[in-house]
C-alpha cells in the first residue's frame, strides 16, 4: 500500500490508541532548551517521575544566552538562573547538555542536524515551535508546550492526533538573488497563516530536490508560520551525503543499513495526499514582509495590496500601494534557526564583500552555532563582516525574539533573516520587523534601506 513518509513514521512510532482516542506516539529524539523546560522538570520532581530515556534527550542553551560575551556567570541574572537550572536538571537526569562553555552549543534547531542527531524517519519533539526545521532531514518533527515536555521527559511519548498531509510542489528554477527564504514566504503568503492547521506539509518538486539541506531547513523551519506544525522533505542522496560522517550518525555498515531503511521510509510514488498545491519557482522574487504576521509579504518591488484600514499598515507605517523597497532601516540582523547557517553567512558575505554598512545602521551577524562560527572564521567570513561594519557575535537566538539582551528599541525598523514579525517580537512593543533572506538583509544594511538585492549581485559570468 502506498504511504506518505508521515504515515509510515506515524505507524512505526505508534504505541497504542489511548482511552481518549488519541495516539500514544513514541518520540525518537527529544531536544531541550532552557526556556520551556524548568517547569517541566519541576513537575517531574513533584510527581516522583524519572526521565524515561535520558539517552534520547539532548539539551542546549540558546534563547536567553547573550551573544556579545558568554562568560559565566552571565551579567543577565535571569539568563544565569535559567542556564543554571538546566545544568542542574540535566546533571540530575543524566542528559547530555551543550552549555555555553561547550564547543557544540548553539540554537537547538541548528545543532541537532549539525551533530547528526536529526535523522530521517524519526519523530522529534522540542519545546519550541520551530522544531519543524528538522523535517528537512525527513523527520516528523514538531513543537510542543511545557506540559508536553513533561510528558516526553516522563514517558518519551505524547498523546497526539494524526494530521492530514498536504503535498506542496515547487518546480522550476529560482532566479538570481532568490532564495529558499523567498520560497517559504511565498508559500505562506498564498496558503495563509492558518492554511496548514491540521496538516503536515510535505514539500517536493524539482526546486526542492535541487536544494541543499540548509535551504531545506529554511523551508521547513517556517512551516509553523503557515499553521503547519510539521513540515518535511523526503530523504534523498542529498540527505544521506549530509549525514555521512556526522558525530551521531551511524557509521560504516550501519550507515549503509540506515540509508536502506531511510529510503524505504520516504513517501511512495502514488501515496495519497489530502491536498496538493503547486508553485512556480521562476515566478518568485525577493520577498519581504510588510505587516505583522509572516503571511503579510510582498515582492520587494511590488506595491502592498492591503485594506487601507488594516491595523498592520498603520502599525508598520506603510500606505496601501507603497513599496517596501526604499524603507529606511535602523537595524540589520542576520541569524536565527531560519537563516543562521554557514551557507546563509556565505550568501550575505557575497553581498557585503568590499562594501560598508550604512552609518546609521546597527548590523549584527549571529552564527547559529559555535560550529558555524568556527567554520565561518576558517573561511575569513568574519573579517568580511567586521571590515564592513557588522558586529560578529557568539551563537544564540539573539534578536529573533526579545528574550535576551539583543532587542529593538522604540519604533526601530529591522531588516531580519528570522521567522516572525509579530508586534513586539524583537523586544520593543513598537519595534517593526521586516522579514527577508540573509542576502536581502545584507543589501539593506549596506544601502541603509530595503533594496532589491539583485541590483547588488555580480552578474552571472557568461
Amino acid at each position, binding site marked *: 500500500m502506498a504511504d506518505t513518509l508521515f504515515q509510515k513514521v506515524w505507524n512505526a512510532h505508534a504505541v497504542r490508541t489511548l482511552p481518549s482516542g488519541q495516539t500514544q506516539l513514541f518520540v525518537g529524539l527529544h531536544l531541550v532548551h532552557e526556556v520551556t523546560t*524548568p517547569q517541566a522538570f519541576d513537575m517531574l520532581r513533584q510527581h516522583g517521575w524519572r526521565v524515561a530515556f535520558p539517552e534520547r534527550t539532548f539539551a542546549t542553551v540558546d534563547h536567553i544566552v547573550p551573544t556579545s560575551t558568554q562568560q559565566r556567570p552571565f551579567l543577565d541574572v535571569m539568563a544565569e538562573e535559567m542556564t543554571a537550572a538546566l545544568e542542574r536538571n540535566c546533571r540530575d537526569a543524566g542528559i547530555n547538555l551543550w552549555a555555553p562553555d561547550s564547543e557544540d552549543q548553539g540554537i537547538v534547531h541548528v545543532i541537532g542536524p549539525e551533530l547528526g542527531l536529526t535523522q530521517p524517519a524519526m519523530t522529534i519533539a522540542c519545546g519550541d515551535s520551530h522544531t519543524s526545521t528538522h523535517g528537512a532531514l525527513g523527520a516528523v518533527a514538531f513543537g510542543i508546550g511545557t506540559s508536553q515536555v513533561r510528558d516526553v521527559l516522563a514517558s518519551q511519548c505524547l498523546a497526539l492526533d494524526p494530521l492530514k498531509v498536504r503535498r506542496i510542489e515547487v518546480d522550476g528554477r529560482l532566479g538570481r538573488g532568490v532564495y529558499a527564504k523567498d520560497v517559504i514566504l511565498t508559500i505562506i503568503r498564498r496558503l495563509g497563516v492558518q492554511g496548514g492547521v491540521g496538516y503536515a506539509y510535505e514539500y517536493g518538486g524539482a526546486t526542492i530536490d535541487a536544494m541543499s539541506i540548509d535551504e531545506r531547513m529554511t523551508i521547513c523551519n517556517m512551516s509553523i508560520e503557515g499553521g503547519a506544525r510539521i513540515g518535511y522533505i523526503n530523504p534523498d542522496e542529498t540527505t544521506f551525503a549530509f549525514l555521512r560522517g556526522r558525530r551521531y550518525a551511524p557509521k560504516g555498515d550501519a550507515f549503509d543499513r540506515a540509508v536502506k531503511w531511510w529510503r524505504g521510509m520516504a513517501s511512495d510514488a502514488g501515496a495519497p495526499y489530502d491536498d496538493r498545491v503547486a508553485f512556480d519557482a521562476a515566478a518568485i522574487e525577493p520577498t519581504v514582509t510588510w505587516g505583522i504576521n509572516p503571511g503579510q509579504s510582498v515582492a520587494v518591488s511590488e506595491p502592498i495590496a492591503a485594506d487601507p484600514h488594516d491595523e498592520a499598515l498603520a502599525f508598520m507605517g506603510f500606505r496601501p500601494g507603497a513599496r517596501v523597497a526604499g524603507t529606511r532601516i535602523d537595524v540589520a540582523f542576520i541569524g536565527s534557526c531560519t537563516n543562521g547557517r554557514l551557507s546563509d553567512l556565505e550568501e550575505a558575505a557575497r553581498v557585503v564583500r568590499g562594501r560598508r554598512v550604512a552609518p546609521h545602521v546597527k548590523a549584527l551577524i549571529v552564527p547559529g552555532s559555535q560550529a558555524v562560527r568556527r567554520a565561518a572564521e576558517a573561511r575569513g567570513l568574519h573579517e568580511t563582516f567586521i571590515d564592513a561594519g557588522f558586529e560578529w557575535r557568539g551563537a544564540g537566538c539573539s534578536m529573533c525574539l*526579545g528574550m535576551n539582551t539583543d532587542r529593538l528599541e522604540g519604533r526601530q525598523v529591522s531588516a531580519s533573516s528570522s521567522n516572525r514579525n509579530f508586534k513586539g*517580537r524583537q523586544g520593543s512593543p513598537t519595534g517593526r520587523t521586516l522579514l527577508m533572506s540573509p542576502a536581502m538583509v545584507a543589501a539593506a544594511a549596506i544601502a541603509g534601506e530595503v533594496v532589491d538585492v539583485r541590483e547588488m549581485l555580480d552578474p552571472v559570468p557568461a
Partner: protein
Amino acid sequence: MSHQPSAISHVEGRGLPLRGDDIDTDRIMPARFLRAVSFEGLERHLFEDDRAADPQHPFNDRRYEGASIVIVNANFGCGSSREHAPQGLSRFGIRAVVGESFSEIFQGNAAMLGMPCFAVDRDAAAKLQALVEAAPDTAIAADVAAGRITAGGLAIEASLPPPLRDAFLSGQWNPTAMLLDRFDDVRAVAARLPYIRGF
C-alpha cells in the same frame, strides 16, 4: 502518585470579548516574561504590551472583571508554542476560550491546563462579542458534551476536536499518567526502531 484531574463537562461564567484575528502568543505573553523558571505570576503580564498601548483594552476594562470566558475571532494563539500564554490566561482566571479558530499548538497546550477552546462560526463569534459588550453581566454556559454555548438569547453550536472533548469529559486531559500506564509497550516500540537499535 499523580493527582488525577477531574472531568470537565461544562464551563460557566461571564465573558470577555477580545476582537481581532491572528492574536499571537507573543502578544498574549511577551517574550521577556518567559525569562523565568516557574509559571508563577504570569497572570500579571497577560497582554502586557497591548494593554499598555490601549487603556481601553478589554483586559483593562473593569466591566469584564471576574470574567472567565474569553471570546475571540480567527487563529487565536498563533505563533510560538509557549505554554506561558495559556498559563497566563488560566492563572488570570480564564476557564475557556470561544472563537472562530485556534492555533493547534495553543489549543493543545490549553487543553493540558483544562481550558477548552470552543470553535464557533465567524458570525456567532462576532454576535457573542457584541452581546457581551452590550451586557457584560450576561451569564455564558459552554457545554462540552452537547457542543453548545448559551448566552442571553443566543444558542450557538460549538465544537471541540473529538479527542480533546473526550479527554475533558473523561478527566484525562492531563495525559502523563495515561502515557506511563503501559510502559512496557513503550519499551517494545523503542526496541523495534532501527535507529534506537543502532541499525
